[in-house]
């Protein structure tokens, strides 16, 4: 009885090892068509860059030609295309993914799906990770008062990122309804005080913030608004 139990264990161990080896081979064999240099690319575009481009290079390490049927992206902000449609054995090529940065912030992860006629690996998921440098962190981007509220100054905090030394920030345009004052707090931190001249009627103002001579501009707003649910028309100055 014990011998039966022992041989059962041995059979099971052998089966597990075979299954293990087969799955590793499957992973390896699955790459026998197109082999990708990288399936995940991380980009660090400079401040002011409009686009970030990732080049996903591949080589056909199989013995049959591979045809790329389609290249799709997870977002309209990313465009991707393949250099070649048909890749002969031994041939190389690349899928270029262009991510439109726009005014996006933080780390953006976008997917590119490449569909091929390879039987084993018909769908390849590529990942384009873009770490967008944000020179200024502005909090909040909107300050507001209710009509009739005491017109005390409210502050917006501006922090420069560690890698972006900022000497000065400026706020434009000058607005007749709001006073603005910038205080340098040191360590790349600034405080912008915005104060309405009065809060008797609804008014709105939009300002542009810029650091030194950086091309990047930021928007902040100031508002005096009615709290009543009736239609409140704002006079934009």
């Amino acid at each position: 009885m014990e011998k039966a139990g022992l041989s059962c264990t041995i059979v099971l161990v052998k089966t597990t090892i075979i299954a293990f080896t087969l799955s590793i081979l499957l992973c390896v064999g699955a790459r026998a068509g197109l082999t990708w240099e990288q399936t995940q690319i991380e980009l660090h575009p400079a401040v002011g860059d409009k686009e970030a481009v990732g080049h996903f290079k591949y080589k056909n390490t199989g013995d049959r030609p591979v045809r790329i049927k389609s290249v799709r992206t997870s977002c309209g902000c990313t465009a991707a295309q393949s250099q070649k449609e048909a890749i002969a054995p031994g041939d190389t090529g690349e899928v270029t993914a262009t991510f439109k940065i726009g005014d996006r912030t933080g780390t953006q992860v976008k997917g590119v799906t490449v569909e091929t006629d390879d039987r084993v690996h018909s769908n390849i998921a590529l990942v384009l990770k873009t770490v967008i440098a944000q020179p200024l962190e502005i909090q909040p981007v909107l300050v507001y008062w209710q009509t009739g509220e005491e017109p005390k100054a409210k502050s917006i905090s501006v922090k420069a990122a560690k890698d972006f030394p900022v000497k000065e920030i400026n706020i434009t345009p000058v607005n007749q309804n709001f006073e603005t004052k910038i205080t340098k707090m040191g360590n790349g931190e600034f405080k912008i005080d915005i104060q309405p001249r009065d809060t008797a009627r609804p008014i709105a103002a939009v300002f542009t913030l810029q650091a030194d001579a950086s091309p990047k501009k930021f928007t902040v707003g100031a508002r005096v608004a009615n709290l009543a649910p009736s239609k409140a028309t704002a006079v934009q100055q």
Partner: protein
Amino acid sequence: MNTVSTINYQLSTERPFVWRIVDLIIGGLFIYAGILKALDPMRFAVDIDNYKTVPWFIGVRLAFYLPWLEILCGLALITRKLYLGGLSILAALTSIFIMATVVAKARGLDITCGCFGHASKYLSFAGHLALDLAILAALLVSIFSARKPSEVLPRQSVLFR
């Protein structure tokens, strides 16, 4: 004279000490993994949703239940209470997880999280698969080496060993 009418299995107490080490490592691993997921059930729910195998309202309920099942099974391995039950559940969970990962990869889904949640995001797909298969192998071998057929009368079979 007693006649044996059934054969039951009970936990073998004659296994080499190395199995105790394996129990502690694997049990500890699942307790750690379970705690990580139990601390942030919403994030785990999003991870389950990424596999696109179950609808959200099922996935979110699984996200609350599975980590605790893992923790209890891990404790079962370490304390040797409900030991065989713990081993079999963990083996079943690991198998299902491996299958879901392979299917997701074949569908081209970007699965960046493994059974250790976001803590394992730096492992490649092959690395993940290798780790999970190794865990499954250890669990299966543990089950079959732990089960020793013993000739006992039905009323003597024990639940807790």
